[in-house]
């Protein structure tokens, strides 16, 4: 993880710029282990290589303020609990997050089940403040607690045939009332290319705002891929499958002309029904320009070198 230990450039947003001061000062309470501290102190500036940082703060001149917690926990897209954005906060109380196990299968040398308690002890949590850009043209800034997805995957030893990772959300209409209707094909599934999954910015989150994840935000374990539209960041995960072929992903299958497999934040590729050029940061009045890869181009653009991002939207 040597690439995390690098010098900040003046244009980088620093944790203290984009984190509420009290939270920033208390951040070490959330951390366990020296590696985590090293990671958190540099987040989100954990770029791998040189080049201009494209943090929103450097573009607009104003730092990225953390979205108030009540906004981030009452305005959610989590169709398992209903299609209105206030539904998850109202209905997610019925989700039981203990006991909870995650099955890891497919192209791995050591497939198996892992209990959430093991996840919480085996992978030290770091705080990472990431921008979250929804495909619906709104955005938030959220302090997550989690660990690199790559660390999780490596524990199960992916084989050379593991080219993609697929994730699945729990299916249980008794706990997730939104699943009583087939708005989407359940279980909700998402996926990444293996190099995307191994990228240090890709996070498995178990908490936010210094506490465990609220149910409506995807407890007890969710994905956070900050350079992609929010729907890629699948919630309440029960299965991780490493596969050779590009896996089924829910929104791309549901409306293939509107949602792609990659779903990288891209102001130049409109959603067929609305522009992706600008976004409203929750809490702001005026819209702001949307940045390529949600402002993480320096870190992740090399993953897509040579690809036609209009075709692979």
């Amino acid at each position, binding site marked *: 993880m040597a690439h995390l230990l690098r010098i900040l450039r003046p244009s980088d947003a620093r944790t203290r710029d984009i984190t509420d001061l009290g939270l920033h000062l208390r951040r070490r309470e959330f951390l366990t282990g020296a590696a985590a501290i090293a990671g958190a102190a540099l987040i989100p500036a954990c770029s791998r290589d040189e080049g201009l940082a494209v943090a929103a703060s450097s573009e607009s001149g104003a730092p990225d303020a953390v979205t108030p917690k009540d906004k981030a926990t009452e305005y959610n897209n989590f169709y398992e609990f209903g299609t209105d954005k206030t539904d998850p906060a109202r209905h997610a109380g019925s989700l039981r997050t203990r006991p909870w196990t995650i099955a890891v299968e497919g192209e791995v040398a050591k497939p198996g089940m892992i209990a959430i308690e093991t996840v919480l002890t085996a992978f030290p949590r770091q705080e990472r403040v990431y921008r979250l850009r929804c495909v619906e043209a709104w955005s938030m800034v959220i302090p997550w607690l989690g660990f690199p997805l790559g660390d999780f995957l490596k524990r199960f030893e992916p084989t050379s045939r593991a080219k993609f990772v697929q994730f699945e959300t729990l299916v249980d209409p008794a706990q997730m009332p939104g699943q009583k209707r087939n708005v989407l094909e359940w279980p909700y599934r998402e996926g990444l290319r293996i190099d995307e999954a191994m990228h240090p910015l890709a996070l498995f989150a178990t908490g936010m705002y210094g506490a465990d994840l609220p149910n409506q935000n995807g407890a007890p374990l969710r994905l956070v891929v900050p350079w992609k539209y929010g729907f890629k960041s699948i919630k309440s995960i029960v299965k991780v499958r490493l596969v050779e072929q590009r896996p089924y992903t829910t929104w791309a299958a549901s409306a293939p002309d509107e949602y792609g497999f990659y779903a990288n934040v891209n102001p130049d590729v409109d959603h067929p029904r609305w522009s992706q050029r600008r976004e*409203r940061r929750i809490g702001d009045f005026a819209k702001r320009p949307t940045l390529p890869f949600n402002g993480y181009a320096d870190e992740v653009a090399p993953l897509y070198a040579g690809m036609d991002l209009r075709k692979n939207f």
Partner: protein
Amino acid sequence: MTGRSALGRTIAVACLAPAAWLTWRAASGDLGANPIETVEHATGAWALRLLLATLAVTPLRRLAGWHAIAAQRRTLGLFAFGYATAHFLTWSVLDNGLDFAAIIEDIGKRPFVTVGFTAFVLLIPLALTSTRASIRRLGKRWITLHRLVYVAAALGVVHFFWLVKKDLRPPLVYAAVLAALLGVRVALGYSKSRSSTVRRPSARAFSMARSQSPRTASESGVATRSDVLNPDRPRT
């Protein structure tokens, strides 16, 4: 006029209530995480609901015999236009910050904005000609002009359909209500035309009211000039 009757006052208060509620929520910071979206959706929904309410007036009068409601159609229609205007202003001023390039691009490029904007534009002449003087001056042409309300309502429902990402139930409810209200008109017109000596072409779903005389127009479920001017007069 309409404001003086108890029914008129009740309807005016009922139409103002959603605006008052929104204003109260705005003042107390209770519009949720995305206040502009909340106002945009609420004003759009009330514009559509009141537009459907205006279309319910004739069926209520013809089928339920509630003649007093006819006088309130203008109130309902003007409030529908008021909410549509608020919806348009919320979108253009608050949501888009009067960025004309973005607004024009949206209207031109996004079909759901195109149809919504068209519906709003179609309502403007109807609101402008809602006065008694206009009704008198335009005569039969007033009836023709005000049939645009069917187009506006249909476009409003399409606007809602194309907006939603996945859950089509809410726009389906509006579509079903609109279909029922138009269906009533077709049925009323059809039953009339079967008994009339002159058989009229059947392809008249939307323009059922298009008729040779004010009398048949009235009986096929659409207002005539005299309906509009003397709405309380019971029909035979």
